[in-house]
């Protein structure tokens, strides 16, 4: 297309990196439950959006600040995650079946959202929504930057938790070989409940930021599916830091496509990257 200026490229890089933070935040819970619990949870997107709607609703209808709303949502989602895992354990659900069940769950959530708040778009307008920090000629949107920091903090904390604590190592051992881990006295059930609750709580965190940054409509549940799955695969299943880095990679690729080609080609990027990675698997995956 047209001539691409340097400042456009720089601004796009910032945009892409920050967008990657939100991708990473959404990918985190999905990657952990897929990698460590062997459950492909399409419902993750549904509850993230539910969390976003709740944040918006509490903020606009009840006047509750997003961080308080976030705390309540995270606690509630943690409990939901435990309940969900109970169902999966009770019926010994396989990976493919988990995909279908959680898809159906997402459809139910979508219908419920539409029933409660119509199919119309909702926006949570806050004072910070349009504010940025200015560095030279570049602009760093405040909310996206905070989301990015939270994503980094959560990813790093989860990584350290899985790597350095007994519980984390036990979880990874269970994912590799549950029967042997059980033989070594690891309580697989209790741990998997904890992890499932945690994944749902992460969806809640992502939901708060989606409410603040993006526009809400029930059908937006599906808007994130493709790109976040690509992030999860690129970042390697069950790897929290990978999820974040995958998010940044995809975010930057998309932003550069928007800058250099045309914004409408951006959705193609994540899927092409995903297909290429699956076909010609490089070492790190």
């Amino acid at each position: 297309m047209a001539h691409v200026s340097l400042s456009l490229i720089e601004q796009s890089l910032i945009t892409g990196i920050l967008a990657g933070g939100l991708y990473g935040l959404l990918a985190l819970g999905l990657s952990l439950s897929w990698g460590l619990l062997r459950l492909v949870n399409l419902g993750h997107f549904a509850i993230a959006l539910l969390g976003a709607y709740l944040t918006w609703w509490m903020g606009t209808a009840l006047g509750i600040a997003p961080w308080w709303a976030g705390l309540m949502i995270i606690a509630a989602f943690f409990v939901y995650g435990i309940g969900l895992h109970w169902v999966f354990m009770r019926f010994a659900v396989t990976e493919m079946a988990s995909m279908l069940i959680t898809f159906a769950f997402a459809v139910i959530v979508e219908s419920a959202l539409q029933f409660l708040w119509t199919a119309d778009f909702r926006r949570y307008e806050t004072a910070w929504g349009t504010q940025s920090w200015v560095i030279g000629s570049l602009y760093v949107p405040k909310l996206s930057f905070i989301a990015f920091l939270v994503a980094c903090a959560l990813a790093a904390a989860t990584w350290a938790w899985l790597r350095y604590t007994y519980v984390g190592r036990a979880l990874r051992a269970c994912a590799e070989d549950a029967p042997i881990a059980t033989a070594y006295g690891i309580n697989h059930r209790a741990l998997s409940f904890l992890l499932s609750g945690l994944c749902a709580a992460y969806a809640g965190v992502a939901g708060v930021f989606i409410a603040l940054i993006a526009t809400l409509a029930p059908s937006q549940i599906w808007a994130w599916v493709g790109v976040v799955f690509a992030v999860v695969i690129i970042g390697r299943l069950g790897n929290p830091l990978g999820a974040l880095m995958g998010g940044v990679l995809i975010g930057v690729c998309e932003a550069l496509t928007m800058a250099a080609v045309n914004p409408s080609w951006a959705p193609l990027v994540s899927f092409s990257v995903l297909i290429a990675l699956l076909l010609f698997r490089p070492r790190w995956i």
Partner: protein
Amino acid sequence: MDLTRDRIRVIAGLIVVAALLLIIPATSVAPYYIAFLYLVFFWISMATSWTILSGFAGYWSFGHAAFFGTGVYCAATLATKFNWPFLWTIPASGLLAAALGTGIGWLVFRLQRLRGELFALITISVTFVVAAIISNTPIDGGSGVYLISVSMPELFGSQPGTIYTLGLFLCALTLIITYGVYRSRMGLGLFAIHDDEDVAEVKGVPTFRYKLGAIALASGLAGAVGSVYSINVSYVTVGETFEITTIMYPVVMSIFGGSRHWLGPALGAIIVTVALYGFPAGPEAALARGGVALGLILVVLLLPEGVMPSLTQLWRRVAPRSLVPVAALPEPLIPPPRAEEAALAAQHAVVLECKDVVKTFGGVQALKGVTLDVRQGEILGLVGPNGSGKSTLINVITGHFRLDRGSINFAGAAIGQLPAHRVARLGIARSYQIPRPFNRLTVLDNVALAASFGDGHGEDDARRMAAHWLGYTGLARKAFDYPPALNLHERKFLELARGLAARPRVLMLDEVLSGLNNTEVDDALNLIRDIRDRGTTIIFVEHLMRAVVALSDRVAVLNGGALIALGDPKEVMNDSEVISVYLGKAHAS
């Protein structure tokens, strides 16, 4: 039970039903019902075609919308930009979609890691990529394509009659093709792929080719269906064509109805279509989607095989006995003896020859140049400590692993680089130490599959021979059970029966005796001798030294991936190196 007659009856039945449905547009039925039936046909075709690959072979595809959309836009482009007569766009759309499906399959199916959810993921990505390409190129460009000026052939008086007829035709075609696949060798092979693809390949199923065939049929039918859809809506857009529902509904409907039965997806499609579109006014409309979703959750949790199998069972219970076909063991067919093999056995001719076979896994040499002859008609004992390379050698000979260096010759042909199913066809079969039956095929079909693919029989003969081998291994009573219902002893004998049914020239038995008690071991040894006496060469991997010495004509000892001894059982067992390997410590010192 005559399978051929059975098959003709079902296909004739389908054609009669389709012909009866063809009369409807000519009757005074309100055209609404005709239009609604078209919708039902549309979804039956979509769900049923999806199941050919995804239900039968277990490769869940979320790419059906991509194939459907390819058909939609192929028809729209040909009809509007190239002024093709509309009817010709139907096969063209089918062929283009089939080509796309085959191309994707050709890339993806050779990679073993792209199974299960990764295959699902790659297919959904393909859907989005196809949508993005159509949307960003002149194929659509974002404005949609108008087909209002495309003239429609009037097949049966009116336009809805035409669309109805075309929909009905494609629906009947889809069902007949799906039934044909379901009842064919290919169907059996696809089911085996679903249960255990590696074993299927080793049993002689050309898995790659079958998967390609299945995806070509599935995508081609979806493409043809898309062509009729385009003229039905007369204006196509990327947003509507590649909607999330187009991606998911075929999956949902098939799972709902039962994706391992040829009629299951049709049943699911009827239920879901009526639930979604049958009540467009009132509270039902808004609830329908949620209701279908809830129904799906319940079906997946409570009836993992879908509604259809439960219905069949119910029918068996309530229907008058005369209407329920009795599952009877087919008349056993004894395979003809092979005279030439007996002759070769008399000469002790070399049948299998491994030369300097090397196999490496990520830098670790599992086989360090093994050279070994196997003679016609002998029982060769293959022993060695854990990790010595016995299983790797078997896997290399059967073609499951490609060998890295060296060569393997079997009956005069180099088989080292052949895919496993070709090796199986040539006459090498194996059993698994831990039995790996196809859990969702009956015991009879498990054995029939081996006879069909290993020995190249048609399905009827294969089942009759399977009946023979079940009798031979004492499993006749269990013919219509499913493997999970068998005990370990029976599962071992099922492994053996599957190996025998392929009528191999070389049968490799991987620790068939482990886990059996003394009497069972003696039974098994007698059976193995009997097999050899009928002309089959046996390679016998075993830990139990008593059995090895008692049974083997020669013994080969592997250690650390190298052959350290070969010869008469008693001599080999007294060899000092062999002893040190088996007594560990001594060897270390």
